[in-house]
């Protein structure tokens, strides 16, 4: 297996994932460096496609960092899924900045789903390999992530309204 061939084509995806999960440039830099070293040390054994293999390493490096932060919580996949709120219509006018804030406000386990699916356009199967959970869990987390993101966007819109009408 060639390290360069396996890793270098996926650097942009890796950085994007690291940056979204770590939340700032300096930590994203650390996460990516960690991931590069681990990828060097434990080369791909041929089981997974290079992208899923490398993104899994990046993702695990990011979560290793997140777990050292105060207030980090593991996700519970047993919670009842959020029923879509009838009044929860999406603000079609949400711009990139609002979407960014909305995604940032998600808990890491949900944020990674949105980043991998919507921004990196991975298949459910690839996401399952990256996050090391069954495909069913990917689907339910993604469902919850989208519902939570909508909530965040709606909350932003309300506070924006309140601010304007003052």
């Amino acid at each position: 297996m060639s390290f360069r061939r396996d890793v270098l084509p996926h650097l942009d995806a890796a950085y994007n994932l690291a940056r979204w999960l770590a939340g700032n440039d300096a930590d994203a830099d650390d996460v990516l460096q960690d991931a590069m070293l681990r990828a060097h040390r434990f080369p791909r054994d041929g089981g997974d496609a290079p992208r899923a293999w490398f993104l899994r390493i990046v993702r695990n490096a990011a979560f290793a960092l997140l777990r050292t932060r105060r207030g980090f919580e593991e996700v519970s996949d047993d919670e009842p899924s959020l029923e879509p709120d009838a009044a929860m219509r999406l603000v079609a006018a949400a711009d990139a900045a609002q979407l960014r804030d909305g995604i940032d406000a998600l808990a890491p386990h949900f944020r990674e789903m949105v980043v991998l699916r919507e921004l990196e356009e991975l298949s459910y199967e690839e996401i399952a390999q990256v996050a090391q959970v069954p495909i069913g869990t990917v689907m339910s987390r993604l469902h919850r992530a989208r519902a939570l993101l909508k909530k965040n966007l709606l909350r932003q819109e309300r506070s924006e309204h309140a601010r304007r009408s003052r």
Partner: protein
Amino acid sequence: MHDDLAELLREHRQELRHPMPPGLRRKFLPPRRVPWAMAAASAAAVALVVGFGVGRTTGGAAAGFEQEVVASHVRSLMAEHLQDVASSDRHTVKPWFEGRLDFAPDVRDFAPDFPLVGGRLDYLGTRAVAALVYKRNGHVINLFEWPADGVASPPRLRTLRGYQLFSWRKDGFAFWAVSDLNAAELQQFAQLWQ
């Protein structure tokens, strides 16, 4: 029911992706793939890097490694790449490598003659190595080290395209020092390690 959200995200996908900072990208790309780095580098550095590209095809495996050491040195002098941890305190630099490398590098400071200014991770061949950065009258010395089997060997000088390289083995480590400093002074630096 989530179609509109998916569509919205798709629409803004490129804006929402975080682009990799150029300095970080430079750190990870192998020495031979340098066209974008050349654009950012000074004319002198460009000439050097181009020089390696030409020289590489003629040298053997050993010469190839020396070229890689020099290329790594030159890249380190480009913006944002000299050090990941900036400190003259070896008690700061050494722990910084912990968890980033699978070995504990030997870190020494030879101030005031050769003050330690920092360290960073680098890649030589296919492995991650510790790079320690020293200064000498405005010249930069990069010292690379990594675990290596084999008997101890005294510093040996090589010269490549105006750069001096000293390599030696000691206590289970391979060391390579590289700089544009003159050979006598770099040898003095190498002797301090023996």
